[in-house]
Each structure stands twice: as structure tokens, then as C-alpha cells.
């Protein structure tokens, strides 16, 4: 088997295992990443929402916020794990398309 095939298998295994990145923090009652709070969490932390932060924080509406489907925020860990895996597949799929797309423009002919 070619090494690239083997490495892609490793990536697929990581995609399947990725929900561990949701489940383990939940199990240890850990919060989100430091400095990545939403506006309402900020309100709780410092007692107010910084004005500039409030304005800029909604500048972009991601189609799959937090690697989940919209409206799935209240769903259980099983649903979120499913969405997480789908997110990984979609994200990596786009990355591969981008790299294969630019390869033509990036690589010299006949290389």
C-alpha cells in the first residue's frame, strides 16, 4: 500500500474518533477554550459585553457554527458527535478540493 493511502487511512480514523474532542472535555466538566467565549458568556465573566466585541462578534455567520448544524445546540452528545464527524468530512473535503484546485495554478507544467 502506498504511504499516502496509509496516511489517508490515519486521517479517516482521526475523523471517526474526533467526537472524543467533545466527549472527553464534557466528561471532565471543562469549559470552552480560553478567550473564545460568546458575548453572553462574556457578560457573566466580566459583568458587561465590551462594545467593540459585541459589534464585531456578529460580523460573520458561519454556516455550521461550532462544528454542528444550526439549531442543534441543545441536542445531546450523540447528535453533536454525528454533526462533528460530518463537519470533519466536509471541512477536509473542502481542504482537499482547494489544494487540488490550486495545484494547477501553483505547480509548473510538466513537473
Amino acid at each position, binding site marked *: 500500500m502506498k*504511504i*499516502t493511502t*496509509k*496516511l*489517508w487511512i490515519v*486521517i479517516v480514523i*482521526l*475523523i471517526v*474518533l*474526533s467526537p*472524543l*474532542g467533545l466527549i*472527553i*472535555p464534557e466528561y*471532565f*466538566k*471543562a*469549559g*470552552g*477554550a*480560553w*478567550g*473564545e467565549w460568546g*458575548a453572553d458568556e462574556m457578560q457573566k*465573566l*466580566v459583568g*458587561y459585553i*465590551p*462594545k*467593540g*466585541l459585541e*459589534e*464585531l*462578534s456578529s*460580523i*460573520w*455567520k*458561519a*454556516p*455550521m*457554527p*461550532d*462544528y454542528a448544524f444550526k439549531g442543534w445546540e441543545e441536542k445531546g452528545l450523540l447528535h453533536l458527535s454525528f454533526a*462533528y464527524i460530518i*463537519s*470533519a468530512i*466536509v*471541512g*477536509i473535503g*473542502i*481542504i*482537499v478540493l*482547494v*489544494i*487540488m484546485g490550486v*495545484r494547477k495554478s*501553483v*505547480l*509548473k507544467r510538466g*513537473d
Partner: protein
Amino acid sequence: MHIPDGYLGPETCGVFYAVMLPIWVRASKIVKKTLKAKQVPILAIGAAFNFVIMMFNVPIPGGTTGHAVGGTLVAILLGPWAASIATTIALLVQALLFGDGGITTFGANCFNMAFVLPFVGYYIYKAISRNAPIGSNKRVIAAGIGSYVGINIAAAFAGLELGIQPLLHKTATGQALYCPYGLNVALPAMLGGHLLAFGWVEVIATALVIKYLQKRSPELLEEGRKN
């Protein structure tokens, strides 16, 4: 380490876009010149690895979470400029599609994770491993140390960028406009988590893959040494 929109003021955002622009241009030129066609799949795998490893959030029990980035590993295989491109693409997809990291802060996030991290990690790896044989443990250790220092320096930069905001932007009443935490809080918070926990995930992931490649595909590491 993905700074969201709203945490950095416009000046800081602008400065880091301005810093990253020539880096992106130079990286594209160098990758165009040196990356061979057969290395393109490795670049894709590298960016995919960056993307998926960042989904493995690691908790500090009762505290915050963080993750590895994998930038040093890609730099060891393809050189730091190609690693910079790979991580930039991963960060772009994360920001646009999943709202992980901001749009205004994209320059800063790329500076930390797609520039500082792979370059620091790579040159430490190079300095330690020198002419060590491809299959040697010295290379595994060098990769581990490089990846650890790389992610921690990157985290320190993120802490600095966040921590200077209260100095730069305040309302008349003393409220912060962007990140409300100063250097005394932001720097230890960002650095502490990575020194204690997330940096070690980076070390383990990097060392495991290097070890695996030494056994299964030493020619890939050989190719990387030429960068």
C-alpha cells in the same frame, strides 16, 4: 488559540493582516518553486491533519480546553513555507465554515498558528537533529521538542495580542472595548494551558507520526530534510 471576531481591535487586526500578506505571497512563491507534484498529496494530508487534530479538544479538568495544531510535523515533512500554506488553508475553512476563529482576526490567527508555530518548531527540529540519521531517535526527540516550543511560542503570541487590547482600547468609563483581560491574565492563561496540557498532545502526535514514518516511509523524511 483561535481568536474570535471582537477580541482584537481594528488596528491589531490590520497589523497582522499586513504582516501575513508578504508571508503568504512568499510562501506561495516558494511552494510553487520547490514543491514537487508527488508532494501535493502530502500537502493535502498535512492540511487535513492540521484540521482534524484541532478538533480533538483536550480538557484541563474543571478548566478550559485546547488542542494540538500539528504545524511542526507538516513543516518537518514539507518545509515551513508549505506548512504555513497548509495551516492557513485549514484555518480559513475553520473560520469561514465553522466560525472557529474570526474573520477580522484571521491574520493574527494565521500569524500565530500558520507562521510562528511551524517556523519555530521546524528550526528547533533542524538545530537539534542536524545530521542525525533519518531513523534515529534523536530526530523523534528533536521533533517533539520543536513541536512543544513551537505551539507554546504561538500561544504566547496569542496571549500577547489579546492582553494588549485593554491597553489600546478603553471607553471613557474604563470598560474594555475588545478583549477585557490584560497581559497579566491573558498571557499566563494562554501559555499555562499549552505548557501543561495541550503542548504535550502536540508532542505526542508529532513524535508518533515521525516514529511511524521512520519505519514505514523513511523516504518521506529524507525528502523533508532537503527543505
